[in-house]
């Protein structure tokens, strides 16, 4: 494995020029993935329609992908990217992998190739759940990265199957008698394990070393590696500039999206998030940083802490129950030795 420093000085495949929102976690993730994948192996990246796609492959703007100012002389540092419809990214990656494998098997391709895909949670878990599960089921030797911002950000912050309970989205709006999203998120980590993934993780670049190490391990996975990347969305979650990493850290530590890593046959672990709620940061602090939960919590001027808004005490209690069940669920999944 490469050290954090070794990776940090590599050249990313994600270049200046994207129009992702300032503070978008996706850009941070791509920067890091780009450096990890600058490892002497040709990289092919596939991407479904998403914020990331429309913000980085928008002609006549610059294509925000590639290594270096010009195509590299060294083929192994070359980079290709393919976009197709929302749900397609895993299937695209699988097909590129297959063609590379067949050509290699026939002796027509001598260079190794690594294939990664990127989807949003809408692309992977809503419209594209079929595609993702079946690529995993077929044990495609690719890394599937799912950037989970818990909304359909690209179309205006609508509910997705990964939306946190009680979140205010443009299709689960809050109002009198309407506390936002009432649907618990899809258990996507369990789903991809059940589908046969070789490696599963939930980690964001807020846990920088862990993130890079996870991506690096995924590129060596013999089966399908699925990396869910919690991705605070500054526009959809409505938080202040400069808080992206803090929010991602707090979300992980408070139990909303704990850091989780798992490998087939080896089991896994939950990191930096105790199963005991009293040992975790209060989830109210995570909620209070975002205006999508402003109907649920408010700042107590006396203590400076976030508390339930009057009349929302039961909703907050239900939210905390869900967070606890979420953490316990991941601890149970970590013990799975399938």
């Amino acid at each position, binding site marked *: 494995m490469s050290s954090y420093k070794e990776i940090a000085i590599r050249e990313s495949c994600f270049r200046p020029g994207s129009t992702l929102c300032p503070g978008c976690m996706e850009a941070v993730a791509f920067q890091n993935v780009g450096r990890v994948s600058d490892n002497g192996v040709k990289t092919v990246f596939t991407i479904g329609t998403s914020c990331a796609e429309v913000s980085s492959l928008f002609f006549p703007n610059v294509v925000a992908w590639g290594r270096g100012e010009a195509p590299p*002389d060294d083929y192994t540092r070359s980079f290709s990217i393919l976009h197709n419809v929302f749900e397609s990214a895993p299937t*695209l990656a699988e097909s590129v992998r297959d*063609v590379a494998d067949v050509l290699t098997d026939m*002796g027509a391709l001598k260079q190794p190739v690594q294939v990664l895909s990127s989807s949003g949670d809408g692309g992977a878990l809503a419209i594209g759940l*079929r595609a993702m599960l079946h690529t995993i089921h077929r044990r495609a030797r690719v890394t599937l990265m799912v950037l989970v911002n818990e909304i359909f950000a690209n179309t205006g912050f609508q509910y997705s199957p990964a939306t946190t309970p009680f979140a205010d989205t443009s299709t689960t709006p809050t109002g009198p008698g309407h506390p936002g999203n009432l649907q618990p998120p899809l258990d996507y980590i369990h789903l991809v394990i059940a589908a046969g993934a070789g490696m599963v993780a939930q980690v964001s670049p807020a846990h920088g070393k862990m993130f890079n190490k996870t991506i690096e391990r995924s590129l060596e996975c013999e089966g399908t590696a699925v990396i869910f990347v919690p991705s605070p969305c500054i526009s959809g979650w409505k938080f202040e500039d400069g808080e992206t990493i803090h929010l991602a850290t707090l979300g992980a530590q408070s139990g909303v999206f704990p850091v989780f890593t798992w490998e087939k046959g080896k089991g896994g672990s939950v990191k930096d998030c105790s199963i005991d709620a009293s040992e975790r940061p209060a989830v109210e602090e995570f909620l209070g940083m975002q205006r999508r939960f402003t109907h649920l919590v408010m700042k107590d001027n006396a203590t400076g802490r976030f508390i339930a808004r009057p009349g929302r005490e039961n909703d907050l209690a239900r939210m905390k129950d869900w967070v606890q069940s979420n953490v316990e669920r991941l601890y149970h999944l970590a013990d799975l030795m399938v």
Partner: protein
Amino acid sequence: MSATDGTKAPMRHFTTPSGEIYPDVIDLEPVRAAHHALYESREEMTADGNTAAAIATLQMWRCVIYPGFPITPSTKWIETVAARIASDPTTKKRVKLMEAEHAVADYMVGAASACRDLIFPTATSSVGLDHMTETTRSLGASGLGNVMIIDVYRATANFPLCIEGDPSDTLAHRDDGFIQIAARGKQQIYDTVIQAPVLGMHPEILTPTMPGYYGIKDSHRNARLVVEPDAEVNTWMDKWLAPCALPGLLNGDTAFGNCVTSRHFQGFKVSQKRRYERVLEFLPRIGASFENHFGRPGLAFFDAVGFEDPSVDVAVVSMGPDFGTFEAVREGWGRKNSLSTAGIAMRLLSPFPRDAVRERLKKAKVVLVVNQAHHMGRGHLTLDVVDALSDLSSPPKVVGAFAGMGGADVSEPTWERMLDQAKHALEGHPVPPYAVFHEGMTL
């Protein structure tokens, strides 16, 4: 071209309009060598249409992965391919069974863009093609001429579901951007599947192809088929298929599938249409080359019968195997009514060969257009023919007809009833914009 003084994997590379290409990364010779011939010599056999189409794709050394998903009546294509691959213990070719037609189409996007010198075929039908639509519309504009979707025609949509063959599926997809070629008869199916990728991958065209044939009538019924040796098939194809000058994902540093502003969208679409229109120039050349090599008719805009004197009383425009029934009744009906008749069976559906159709029909007095696909207006073919004739100062009268929808046989009495309708128009009587015919009756 750039040279390199790097220490790692120096390789030639060139700049192209689509990014950088590293032409030495993929050596196609081992792929060619890994092909195991299905037929060493010309053979005559009895086969159904799906088998004929499957054999053609199996004989191409450039086909190394066969993605598919079964749907009636195309299923036997993937079954045949799978059986042949499974019967060869040393082949390195693969059948790729996907979970849905949409996945097949997505898979072909990735595979075809990974290596633009390989050919990726599949077969589907009806709602299977509909299920692919989100991606076939992308593919049509993609420049990936190495994608071939064999459409086994079947009535599309449910309410009511009908598993027999009419071309409403392919005709509902005319704006997908594929080159759509209809075949009738097993030999024409086989020959068309061999020629289609040559047309689609031509550097002036770079457009995916959709050869098709009628479900049940042609997909399931057996007839005589002459199969050429693999070596001849590939020799002929290789004569046309030079290495793609544009990079793929594996041998390039490139980006596929960008989005654009509306301003630049125009240019992309103009480019797509121009490539598409070049089909009209290259299809006859490829067809002639095929005929010269194999001694059978190659691709053509249409099959024609009875135009020795182009000034016919009634000219028929139709497609598919039921055109053969028209050929059987044509002379008898003509003698009985003292009228001359001729007809064309369309082969190239999209782009529609407007000029060639006009040239062929311009001296006819009445043109009877027989549509076999449901259409909410006068019929797909009718509208195309009317448009083709619209430039004439005195165009023939066009009679629109529907018959054989849902794959029903267009019987001799039905053809005669439709020809009677054309005669009615020829005599100056008013006829409706269209009429529906079945079993010798007007419905």
